[in-house]
């Protein structure tokens, strides 16, 4: 039978049992006992039928984290791992689990060499208490790295991350009492292995420039939703780039089940249905073999995480962001969170059901190209008769007016299947490169992108792509973010570089198209 139905039945049964237990708990005169050890008084009610005492809860919580991490079967023994650390409750709990696990001395030791990677978002989130986050990060006795969000705006080869502390060696050997002889303390080991690579610092003057650029991009983003999504994209790009720069293959994110359920639903609302699976998966493979992004808290709810923090005295800074204290109407993300938690209050299986459904979704059809901003598969090349194309077409017609509109039959026939329409530029500016490819007309007379290919125009150095060229290389969800923007002059260069490369490649392909033998 289908696993969904079995799961739902089990859920239902468990819920009934929970109601029963709860009723029993309330009617009893004595303290309710933990359902697990049946000796200590219960203090927690989780999900449906889990009534736990503190110790059993902490053990079960830790076990869940370890088994989720183990499930990936992708870990190599004792390899370095970075925890994306915001100082918030979830990443603080993850940092605690990982660092405690890795410093255990028995056979249960978590075979990772952890480090923390914090992102300084103060350029766009002035409320972020960077000093406090740094202080908290310092309490875990593992290497701490810091990357500033603005660094992601720079060239993709530029360094983005620096080492914050490296005074752990003496401290840790002192505390561990040197009981371990064969294995060096994990924190000391990772400190040595990566510190040399992290020595390159991003240039301060350049960072100030990028900070200004980021702030302009931020103020160009029209809505709370666009900002929220932009921050999320830039942050994950930065984390990936930092890990790559440090030569660390494993990046751990503290997304909880609740967080993933909310972002799944707000993703659907924001036109990211095709990416539902990647967004909730344990392992995020969008960066290929060089970087493995894992979400080891994905089967733990935000309630469990908050309770773990409470019972294990994990310190954290309460979440601040552009939406802190904002009403639900501030963004789609906030509204979705409100909605999900509201439902969850009456139907305790809400979050896990949404989340489990998300993990079962997958996009139909092969998507060969990736989005230039979020690096997830480009979902915008669905057939010429798709709803998306219809939306685009009507938008094109209504925004360009009768005189400047001309449907381009030629490009509609291209292999990519895009139905593309061309807006003719008013009068002059027609093709400095003298070819008659529709692309040159589309981009308002500028040449096809430079890079030393045949056309030989003067404009060879990285021209900023137009809004249209940009949109064409973005997935539907990212298009919505960019469309909301007042101007696109400050789009980070990792995106514009990618757009330029792809545009150039496509132009070249068009030029030699007649000589290609197509396999149909």
């Amino acid at each position, binding site marked *: 039978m289908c696993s969904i139905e079995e799961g739902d039945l089990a859920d239902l049964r468990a819920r009934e049992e929970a109601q029963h237990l*709860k009723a029993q*708990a*309330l009617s009893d005169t004595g303290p*309710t006992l933990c359902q697990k050890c049946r000796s200590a*008084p*219960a*203090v*927690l*009610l989780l999900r449906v039928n889990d*009534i736990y005492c*503190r110790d059993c809860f902490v053990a079960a919580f830790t076990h869940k984290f370890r088994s989720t991490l183990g499930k990936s079967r992708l870990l190599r023994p004792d390899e370095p791992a970075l925890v994306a650390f915001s100082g918030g*409750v979830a990443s603080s709990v993850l940092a605690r689990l990982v660092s405690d696990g890795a410093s255990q001395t028995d056979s249960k030791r978590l075979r990772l060499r952890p480090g923390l990677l914090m992102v300084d978002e103060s350029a766009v989130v002035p409320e972020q208490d960077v000093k406090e986050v740094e202080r908290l990060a310092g309490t875990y006795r593992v290497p701490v790295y810091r990357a500033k969000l603005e660094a992601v705006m720079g060239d993709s080869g530029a360094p983005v991350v620096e080492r914050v502390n490296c005074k752990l060696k003496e401290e840790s050997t002192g505390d561990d009492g040197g009981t371990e002889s064969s294995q060096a303390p994990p924190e000391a080991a990772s400190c040595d292995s990566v510190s040399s690579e992290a020595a390159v610092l991003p240039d301060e003057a350049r960072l100030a420039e990028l900070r200004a650029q980021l702030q302009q991009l931020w103020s160009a983003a029209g809505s709370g939703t666009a900002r929220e999504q932009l921050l999320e994209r830039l942050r994950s790009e930065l984390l990936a780039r930092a890990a790559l720069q440090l030569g660390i293959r494993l990046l751990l994110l503290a997304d909880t089940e*609740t*967080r993933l359920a*909310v972002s799944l639903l707000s993703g659907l609302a924001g036109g990211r249905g095709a990416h539902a699976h990647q967004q909730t998966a344990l392992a995020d493979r969008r960066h290929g073999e060089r970087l493995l992004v894992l979400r080891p808290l994905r089967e733990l709810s*935000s*309630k469990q*995480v*908050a*309770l773990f923090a*409470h*019972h294990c005295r994990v310190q954290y800074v*309460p*979440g601040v*962001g552009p*939406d*802190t*204290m*904002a009403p639900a109407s*501030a963004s789609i*993300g*906030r509204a979705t*969170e*409100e909605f999900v*938690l*509201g439902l*969850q*209050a009456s139907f305790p299986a809400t979050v896990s059901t949404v989340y489990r459904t998300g993990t079962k979704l997958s996009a139909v059809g092969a998507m060969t190209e990736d989005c230039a901003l979020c690096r997830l598969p480009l979902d915008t090349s669905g057939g010429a008769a798709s709803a998306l194309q219809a939306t685009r077409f009507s938008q094109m017609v209504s925004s360009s007016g009768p005189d400047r509109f001309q449907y381009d039959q030629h490009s509609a026939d291209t292999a990519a299947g895009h139905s593309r329409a061309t807006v003719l530029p008013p009068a002059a500016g027609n093709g400095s490169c003298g070819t008659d490819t529709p692309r040159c007309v589309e981009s308002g007379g500028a040449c096809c992108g430079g890079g030393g290919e045949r056309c030989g125009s003067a404009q060879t150095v990285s021209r900023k792509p137009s809004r249209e060229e940009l949109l064409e290389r973005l997935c539907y969800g990212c298009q919505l973010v960019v469309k909301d923007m007042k101007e696109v002059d400050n789009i980070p260069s990792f995106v514009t570089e990618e757009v330029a490369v792809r545009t150039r490649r496509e132009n070249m392909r068009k030029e030699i198209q007649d000589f290609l033998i197509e396999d149909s």
Partner: protein
Amino acid sequence: MQLTVEFSGGAELLFGNVKQHRVTLPDRGDGDSVWTMEGLLPWLRDNLLKERPELFMQGDTVRPGILVLVNDADWELLGQLSYKLQPDDTVVFISTLHGG
């Protein structure tokens, strides 16, 4: 009756950014000194809360996403609103809301 009330996870932002409060609940009229959670919530809202009551309460209970612990035990195990407070109880409110 005296209680310790704590706020964390961002809920403290609504209460003057103070995490721990020692509060003294007045006797209610008619010699009735019994306080339940149902009475405590609006009392906190009216006497301790500094801003945005809608971010703390919704209807007669706490807003979804705020956990309530009494002496470290989930209030769902204690009957939630009907729980009768005892002197020197510690009541903890933890916000699990991303933006709160």
